C-alpha cells in the first residue's frame, strides 16, 4: 500500500517548499499526509522527544482496543505519576510557607533516560528531607502549643482559685501537696473537692459543659475563661481558638468519668498546682522552656526555608521535565510493536511542509542514542478524512477562531477566515459607525496590541480578559473601521464636524430666521451650491434637519442591502473555488450557475436599480425625472415578482427606462427556471454517472482493488482518476440525494430573500446606535451644558460629564459594541458562510510540548 501510488510528490528541495508555502497562505488548510514511522525501540524515546519539540505531528492511536493499563509503557507513565505526586507535595509545602515559585526562564528539554534516574533520586531525596523537616516542625510545634496552653492554664486559673479560696481557704491549703502522675492536683479538702484543669476548643465548650453536668447530675463545678491568643494547629496550620477550664468535683469515681469525657472531647489536661506560689514557680519554668523552644523553632524554621528556597529554584524545571516525559510515554503508548519486536511503528498526520522537520527530528533522535539503524518515515496514501490545519500567526489567529467556532473547515476547503479579516471589521463598522466611539475602541485595541508582550506574559485566569486579549487585533481593526464609517456618517458622539464646509447656504434674511422656528432649504434652488458636493460623507447640515432620520434611514437601508447582496454574491462565487479544487467542476454548472443567476437577476438587479435611481432623478430635473416621480425600488421589486402594475403619478413614468417591464419579466422567468435546474441537475447527474460507472465496473469485476485498507468516506477528495476505487464505500441511495437536494434548493431560494432582509440589521443597528448616542447627549450632557449659573454650572457640567462618559463607555461602547459584534458574527456565519462553507473537518492537534505545557498551566 505504502509503495503503491504516490500521486503527489513530496517536496524535498528547499525551493519547492518555499514555493508551496507561498501558494498556501490562509486561503485553504495545509496539505496533510499520513505517515508511518518505524523507530528503533532504543531510539523511540529521544525521537518522540524531538518530535514533541518540533510540534508538527499528530499521532494516531494504534491500540484503541487495548486498555489504558495494559499498554506497553504503562510502568513508565506510573513512574512519572509518582514523580508528579512528589512535585505536588513539595509545591504544597512551598505554598504553606509562602515561598514563591519562579517561572523558569528557559524551558528544559525532556530528560534522557539517564537523567530520569537522577531526577527520580533527587525528587526522592527532596521529598524525604522535606517530610522529615515538617515532621520535626510538627513535633516542635506540638510541644510549643502544649507549653503555651499550660502557660495560659496557669495564668487563667489564678482567678478561679482565688474565688475558690474565698469559699474554702483552709481545705485547699491542707491538701495541695497531692498531685498525681496524670497531672491534676487533687484537692481533698472539705467534702474531698478535687479539680482538673485543661484547655478545650471553644466550639466544643457548650456540649462539654452539658455533658459534664449530665454525667454528674449537676455535681461538677466548671469554670472557664477564653484564651485571648489564637493558636496554630501544628499539623494543618489552621488557627485554633481554645478555652481554659477548671472542673471542680467530688470523689475519685467522678474524676475518672470526667477524664473520659475530657478525652472524648479532645480536651488537653495539664497539671496545675493549687497553691499560688507553686503555680508561679511552675509558670517561671514554663516561660524559660518556652524561650528555649522558641529559639529552636526559629532555627528549624530558618533551615526549612533555606531548603525550600533551594528547591523552589529547581522545582519548575523538574516539573516541566516530568510533564514532557509523561507526554512522551503517553505518545509511545499509541505506537504499535512490530511482530519481530525490532521496531516501533507509529502512524501520524504530518503537514507536507513540515516533513523535512520530522525527518530531521527522527534522525536527531536516533543520533542522540547512537543508533546505527536509522528510523524510517513512509508516506502512505489514505482515503480517510485528514485533519484541518491552518497555520496562523498572532494576527490571523483571532479571525481563524471566529470561523472555527462555527465549525472547523473541511480538509482543504476554502477558508473564510482570510476574507473575514476585512469584511468582519467592516460590517461591524457599518453598525458601530461613530468616530468617537470607534476611537475609544481603537485606543483599547491599540493599547493591547502595543503592550501585547508584557500583557501576554502575565498569564491571567480572568476569562473575560482573555477573550478580549485574544481578539485584540479584531478589536483594533473594528475600531479603525468604525472610525472610518463614523467619519463617513459624520458622527462624533452624535455630533457632526464641519470639516470641508457645508455646501448648503442660507439665503433667508436675519428677521425671517429669527421669527421662524423651522425653515426649508430647497436643493433645487440656489440653497445648494451649484455643482459642488461635500467631498466625503454626509454634509454636516443634516445634523440640524428635522428630516435627518428619514433621510438617513433611506440611505442606510439601501447601503445595507447593497453591501449584503455583494457579500452574498461573493460567498456564492467562493463555492466555484471549492468545486474547482475538489475536481467536481461539473457542479459549477449544476449548482453554482443557477445559484448565481438567481441571485444576480433578482437581487443584484434590485441593487442596480437603486444606483440607477440615484443617478436618474435629481432635484433640478423636470418630470418625469423630478424627485416626486422617483418610484420606490421596493414596490418596484415586489411588482416585478408578482407581475403587477401600480399606476404612476400624473406626469411620471412607472418605469425608469423603456423595456424595463419586458426585461423584468425575462429576469423573473429565468430566475424561476433556475429553481428546477438546482433541484434536478445534481441528482440526475449522479444518477447518470452511476449507471455509466456500473457498466465500466462490471467489465473487470475481478480486480477490485484489494489493496484498499481503509474505505474512503468522502468521495469529493478523490481525484477523478481514482474514481473506480471509490466503489469501496456504500453509495447514498438516490432517493436520499433527491431529498437532500430538494432541501438545499428550498433553503437557498428562501435564503436569498431572508438573508437579504437579514442584512437590514446593518441599518437597524446603526440607526439604534446613532439614536442612542443622540439621546444620551441630549438628555445627559446637554443638561449640564445648558445651565448658565456661574456656580452651579461648572458643578453640573462636571457631574453630567461623568455620567455621560460612564454611560457612553458602558452602554454605547461595551454593550452596543458587543451586540454589533454578535450581529456581525451572525452575518458571517449564516449569511455569508452558508453559501459555500461545509465546516465538517476536525482540527489538527499536533503533539507539541509547548501546547501541553501551556494547557497544564491553566
Amino acid at each position, binding site marked *: 500500500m505504502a509503495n503503491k501510488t504516490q500521486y503527489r510528490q513530496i517536496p524535498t528541495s528547499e525551493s519547492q517548499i518555499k514555493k508551496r508555502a507561498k501558494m498556501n497562505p490562509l486561503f485553504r488548510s495545509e496539505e496533510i499526509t499520513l505517515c508511518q514511522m518505524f523507530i528503533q525501540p532504543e531510539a523511540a524515546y529521544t525521537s518522540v522527544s524531538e518530535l514533541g519539540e518540533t510540534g508538527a505531528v499528530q499521532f494516531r492511536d494504534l491500540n484503541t482496543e487495548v*486498555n489504558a493499563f495494559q499498554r506497553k509503557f504503562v510502568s513508565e507513565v506510573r513512574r512519572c505519576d509518582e514523580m508528579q505526586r512528589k512535585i505536588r507535595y513539595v509545591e504544597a509545602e512551598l505554598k504553606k510557607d509562602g515561598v514563591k515559585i519562579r517561572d523558569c526562564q528557559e524551558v528544559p528539554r525532556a530528560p534522557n533516560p539517564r537523567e530520569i534516574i537522577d531526577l527520580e533520586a533527587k525528587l526522592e531525596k527532596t521529598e524525604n528531607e522535606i517530610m522529615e523537616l515538617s515532621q520535626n516542625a510538627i513535633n516542635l510545634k506540638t510541644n510549643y502549643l502544649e507549653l503555651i496552653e499550660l502557660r495560659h492554664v496557669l495564668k487563667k486559673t489564678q482567678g478561679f482559685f482565688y474565688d475558690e479560696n474565698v469559699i474554702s481557704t483552709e481545705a485547699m491549703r491542707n491538701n495541695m501537696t497531692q498531685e498525681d502522675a496524670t497531672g491534676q492536683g487533687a484537692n481533698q479538702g472539705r467534702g474531698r473537692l478535687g479539680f482538673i484543669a485543661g484547655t478545650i476548643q471553644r466550639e466544643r465548650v457548650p*456540649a462539654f459543659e452539658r455533658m459534664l453536668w449530665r454525667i454528674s447530675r449537676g455535681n461538677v463545678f466548671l469554670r472557664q475563661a477564653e484564651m485571648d491568643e489564637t493558636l496554630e494547629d501544628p499539623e494543618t496550620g489552621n488557627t485554633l481558638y481554645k478555652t481554659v477550664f477548671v472542673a471542680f468535683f467530688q470523689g475519685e469515681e467522678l474524676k475518672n468519668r470526667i477524664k*473520659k*469525657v475530657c478525652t472524648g472531647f479532645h480536651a488537653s489536661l495539664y497539671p496545675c498546682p493549687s497553691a499560688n506560689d507553686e503555680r508561679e514557680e511552675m509558670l517561671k519554668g514554663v516561660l524559660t522552656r518556652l524561650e528555649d523552644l522558641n529559639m529552636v523553632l526559629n532555627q528549624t524554621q530558618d533551615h526549612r526555608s533555606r531548603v525550600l528556597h533551594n528547591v523552589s529554584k529547581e522545582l519548575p524545571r523538574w516539573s516541566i521535565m516530568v510533564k514532557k516525559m509523561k507526554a512522551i510515554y503517553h505518545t509511545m503508548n499509541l505506537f504499535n510493536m512490530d511482530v519481530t519486536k525490532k521496531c516501533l511503528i507509529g502512524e501520524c498526520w504530518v503537514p507536507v511542509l513540515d516533513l523535512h522537520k520530522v525527518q530531521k527530528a527522527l534522525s536527531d533522535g536516533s543520533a542522540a542514542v547512537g543508533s546505527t539503524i536509522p528510523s524510517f518515515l513512509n508516506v502512505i496514501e489514505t482515503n480517510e478524512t485528514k485533519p484541518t490545519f491552518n497555520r496562523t500567526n498572532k494576527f490571523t489567529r483571532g479571525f481563524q477562531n471566529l470561523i472555527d467556532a462555527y465549525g472547523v473547515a473541511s480538509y482543504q476547503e476554502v477558508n473564510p477566515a482570510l476574507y473575514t479579516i476585512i469584511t468582519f471589521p467592516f460590517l461591524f463598522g457599518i453598525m458601530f459607525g461613530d468616530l468617537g466611539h470607534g476611537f475609544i475602541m481603537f485606543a483599547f485595541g491599540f493599547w493591547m496590541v502595543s503592550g501585547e508582550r508584557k500583557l501576554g506574559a502575565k498569564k491571567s485566569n480572568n476569562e473575560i480578559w482573555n477573550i478580549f486579549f485574544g481578539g485584540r487585533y479584531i478589536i483594533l481593526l473594528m475600531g479603525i473601521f468604525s472610525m472610518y464609517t463614523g467619519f463617513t456618517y459624520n458622527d462624533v458622539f452624535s455630533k457632526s464636524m464641519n470639516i470641508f464646509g457645508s455646501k448648503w447656504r442660507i439665503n433667508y434674511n436675519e428677521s425671517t430666521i429669527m421669527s421662524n422656528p423651522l425653515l426649508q432649504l430647497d436643493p433645487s434652488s440656489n440653497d445648494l451650491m451649484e455643482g459642488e458636493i461635500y467631498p466625503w460623507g454626509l454634509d454636516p447640515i443634516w445634523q440640524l434637519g428635522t428630516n435627518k432620520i428619514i433621510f438617513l434611514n433611506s440611505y442606510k437601508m439601501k447601503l445595507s442591502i447593497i453591501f449584503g447582496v455583494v457579500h452574498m454574491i461573493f460567498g456564492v462565487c467562493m463555492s466555484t473555488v471549492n468545486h474547482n479544487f475538489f475536481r467536481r467542476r461539473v457542479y459549477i454548472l449544476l449548482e453554482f450557475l443557477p445559484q448565481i443567476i438567481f441571485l444576480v437577476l433578482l437581487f443584484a438587479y434590485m441593487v442596480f436599480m437603486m444606483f440607477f435611481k440615484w443617478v436618474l432623478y435629481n432635484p433640478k430635473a423636470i418630470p418625469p425625472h423630478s424627485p416626486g416621480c422617483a418610484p420606490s425600488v421596493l414596490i418596484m421589486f415586489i411588482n416585478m415578482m408578482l407581475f403587477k402594475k401600480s399606476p404612476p403619478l400624473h406626469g411620471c413614468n412607472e418605469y425608469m427606462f423603456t423595456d424595463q417591464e419586458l426585461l423584468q419579466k425575462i429576469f423573473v422567468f429565468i430566475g424561476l427556471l433556475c429553481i428546477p435546474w438546482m433541484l434536478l441537475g445534481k441528482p440526475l447527474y449522479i444518477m447518470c454517472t452511476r449507471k455509466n460507472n456500473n457498466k465500466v465496473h462490471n467489465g473487470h469485476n475481478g480486480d477490485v482493488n484489494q489493496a484498499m485498507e481503509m474505505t474512503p468516506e468522502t468521495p469529493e477528495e478523490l481525484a477523478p482518476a481514482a474514481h473506480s476505487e471509490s466503489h469501496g464505500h456504500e453509495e447514498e441511495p438516490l432517493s436520499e440525494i433527491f431529498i437532500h437536494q430538494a432541501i438545499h434548493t428550498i433553503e437557498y431560494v428562501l435564503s436569498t430573500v431572508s438573508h437579504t432582509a437579514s442584512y437590514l440589521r446593518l441599518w437597524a443597528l446603526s440607526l439604534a446606535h446613532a439614536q442612542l448616542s443622540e439621546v444620551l447627549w441630549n438628555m445627559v450632557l446637554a443638561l449640564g451644558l445648558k445651565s448658565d449659573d456661574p456656580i452651579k454650572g461648572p458643578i453640573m457640567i462636571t457631574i453630567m460629564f461623568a455620567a455621560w462618559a460612564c454611560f457612553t463607555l458602558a452602554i454605547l461602547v461595551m454593550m452596543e459594541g458587543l451586540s454589533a459584534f454578535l450581529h456581525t458574527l451572525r452575518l458571517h456565519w449564516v449569511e455569508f458562510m452558508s453559501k459555500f462553507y461545509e465546516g465538517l473537518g476536525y482540527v489538527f492537534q499536533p503533539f507539541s510540548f509547548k501546547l501541553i505545557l501551556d494547557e497544564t498551566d491553566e
Partner: protein
Amino acid sequence: MGFMFNIDAGYLEGLCRGFKCGILKQSDYLNLVQCETLEDLKLHLQGTDYGQFLANEPSPLAVSVIDDKLREKLVIEFQHMRNHAVEPLSTFLDFITYSYMIDNIILLITGTLHQRPISELIPKCHPLGSFEQMEAIHVAATPAELYNAVLVDTPLAPFFVDCISEQDLDEMNIEIIRNTLYKAYLEAFYDFCKGLGGTTADVMCEILAFEADRRAIIITINSFGTELSKDDRQKLYPRCGKMFPDGLAALARADDYEQVKAVAEYYAEYAALFDGSGNNPGDKTLEDKFFEHEVKLNVYAFMQQFHFGVFYSYLKLKEQECRNIVWIAECVAQKHRAKIDNYIPIF
C-alpha cells in the same frame, strides 16, 4: 409541583443527578476485574469520574486506603448537598445520616465492651454519622446512662426511649439496642416521608418498606439458635414494611429457615429473592439477593423527577459501588480471582 420543588431543591437535584452519572457502568467493572495489580485499578479509576482521587497517595497502595478515599469522596459530596439544603430537604438528609449514627454508637459501645481504646475505634466510625458527644460515649455503662449522658442531646434521643433499662451493657443487649433503635428510626423516617407526600412518599416508602422487611427477615434468620425469645424478637421488627402486620406475625412464629421462606412465599417480590438464592457454591447468597433488589429499587428512584428519593438512592448506590470496588480491590490484592465477579453491577 415541579416548579415549586425547583425553587428550593432544583439545584441540588440537578447536582445529585449529575453525580449519579458518574456511577461506574458495567463496562467499567469489566475493565476493573481485568486489573492485575492495585496500580492498574488506580489507573483505570483515573479514567472515570473518580479522577485523581488517588493521585496523592504514595505507592504501594493498600485496599484500606482506597476504601477510605472512596468514602471520603462520597462524604464530601453528600455534605456539600447537605450544606446547601433547606427545609424539608435538610431534615430528610439528616434522617439519612441517623442510620450511620446508630451504627457508630453500636460500634463504639461494642468496642469499649471489648476494652479497645476509644482512639482506635474513632477512625472506624462513618464520618456521616459522627456527632459531638460521640467520642465520650464510653462513660456510659448502662443503656439508661447512655441515654441520659450522651444521647439525650442528639437527634437519636426519641428513638432510644424504648431501650432505656438499668441492665448492664452486654453483647445481647447491644444487639437488641441496635435493632430497637433501627426499628424506631425506620418507622420515624417512613412516617416523615409519608408526611412529605407526593412523589417523595411514593418512592421513599417503597424503599424503606423493603428495608424494614429485609431487617425483619434477617433478624428472624439470625435469631435461630440464640437465646432471643420469640416475643422479644417480635418487638424488633420494624412495622412499616409490606409484611406488616400479617407477615410479621407469621415471622414471629417461625422456627427455621424453611418457615421463613414459606412466609416470604406470600409476597411475590420476596419469594423471587428466596428462590434465587442458595448456599451452594456458585449460588448467590440471600444477602446478595437483597442487595441486588435494593439496587434495583434505588435505580428506579431516578425514573421520577422532583422528589427527595434521589438523594437517598444516590447515597445507597454509591455505597454499593464502594463495596464493589473494595471487593474487586481485595480480590486483586489477594490474587484470589475466583470470586471477583461477585460484585453487584448498578447500571
